């Protein structure tokens, strides 16, 4: 009787334990190249202006990276000058949020950057986020929108930047 019981438990444990797979991706880099920032007409030569720009990452854009469903964190944001721009010194402030149009949850602020007046000239704004925010809820939507609010003495003509996000997250499958 004991033999039958134990063998049955063994078989049941094997059958109903199911399968699960989990991959822990600690550094995934997603780059949006040539993001167009609209020019801002200036009323005076020294006036500050701001403009929002955004790009969206859909399941078709980043394919498997959208499979990260839990613990999705953005650790670093890089904004690099591209095209004819040689420097981004004219940008004083950057505010980045992540949102999902289909989600009822509002935009999640990711980072705030403010240029130090003594900072050397650079073509890259590189911000490490010491306390990353979990964006799993908006990342798991089909479409995720990353919005950048730029402020400073912005060019009057359209210009372009490359935006890079460094993320981590977990891909989980259960069968």
């Amino acid at each position, binding site marked *: 009787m*004991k*033999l039958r019981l*134990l*063998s049955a*438990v*063994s*078989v049941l*444990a*094997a*059958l109903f*334990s*199911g*399968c*699960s*797979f*989990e*991959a*822990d*991706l*600690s*550094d*995934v*880099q*997603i*780059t*949006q*190249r*040539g*993001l167009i920032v609209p020019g801002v007409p200036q009323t005076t030569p020294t006036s500050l202006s701001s403009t929002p720009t955004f790009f969206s*990452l859909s399941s*078709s*854009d*980043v*394919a*498997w*990276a959208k499979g990260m469903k839990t613990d999705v964190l953005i650790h670093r944001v890089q904004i690099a000058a591209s095209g004819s721009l040689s420097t981004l010194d004219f940008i004083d402030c950057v505010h980045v949020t992540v949102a999902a149009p289909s989600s009822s949850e509002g935009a999640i602020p990711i980072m705030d950057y403010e240029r130090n007046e003594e900072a050397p000239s650079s073509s890259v704004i590189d911000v490490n986020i010491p306390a990353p925010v979990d964006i799993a809820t908006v990342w798991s939507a089909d479409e995720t929108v990353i919005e950048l609010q730029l402020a400073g003495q912005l060019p009057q003509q359209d210009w372009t930047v490359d935006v890079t996000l*460094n993320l981590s997250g977990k*891909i989980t499958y259960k069968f």
Partner: protein
Amino acid sequence: MGSSAQKIALVGSLLAALVAAQNARASEQLYPADQTPSDAGVDDPAPQAASDAGVGQMPDLAPADLRVPQVDAGLADIGDATAQSDAGELAASTLRPEATHREAQEIPFARGADVGPGAKSSRQGEDMSVAATAASASPKRLPIFGVMADVGVPDGLNVSLAIRPRKWVRFCGGGGTNSISYGWRTGITLLPFGQGPSASLEYGGYQDGDANALAKKLMGGGFNGSPVLERVGYQYLNAHLGLDFGSRRFVFFIHGGVSVLRGQIHNLDAALAGAGATGTTEVLVRQDPNAKAVGPSVKLGFIGYVW
């Protein structure tokens, strides 16, 4: 996930523990739990005298092993006798009343000359060897060391040294292959009834190997290989229940349960090149992901105990 040195140290520790357990078992066979070494010997009630007579030099042997068939008196009597007398006076004072001095002279150990240290020594050696042979040939003693071979998932094919210090517990350590690379495994199996139902816990690992060849065999000629399969390695932990048949020299077993696999996925970036980008969007995996899989597992095998 540890280094090879850590793995070797782990296996070494396991084997050392098993050897210690074996020594304890051998000691237990000589000195049963209810009998101390001095109890098993023949030194009471006159330990010093018996020692003088030479009999006390065999403390490890039970009195039954030392009895001489022709002598009705027990060994303790001989001990008493040797305590009370010189060698030549032994027989008359210790054998049963009807035994004459002549009879006593014909009885080994009872004769004065035989009880002397020289003659006694050779006789003692014979008796000890008989006792030792009897102990080693005891039908109750299970062979301890054996060779185990098994096959399963995710274990692959393994050959191990099996050690059974008690009938209810078995340790194993060895190596094998999963058709991709070579690996190692160690584990413990508990058999509460000596055979039949069993519970096992095993830990093993396979070093990185190219799994493309195996994938082509399994998936056919249409499979062109994948960079992500070029380095496949993993560690695994099995928690199994099962059945073990046989108990003495050969054991057949079938185990099943749950396994947890851990490993790194290499070259994922190369495998996903172009798959995760459209136009102006680029996706890179800058660090190999750590992966964990949990699923059912099964294996079957046999053990041949040789010693």
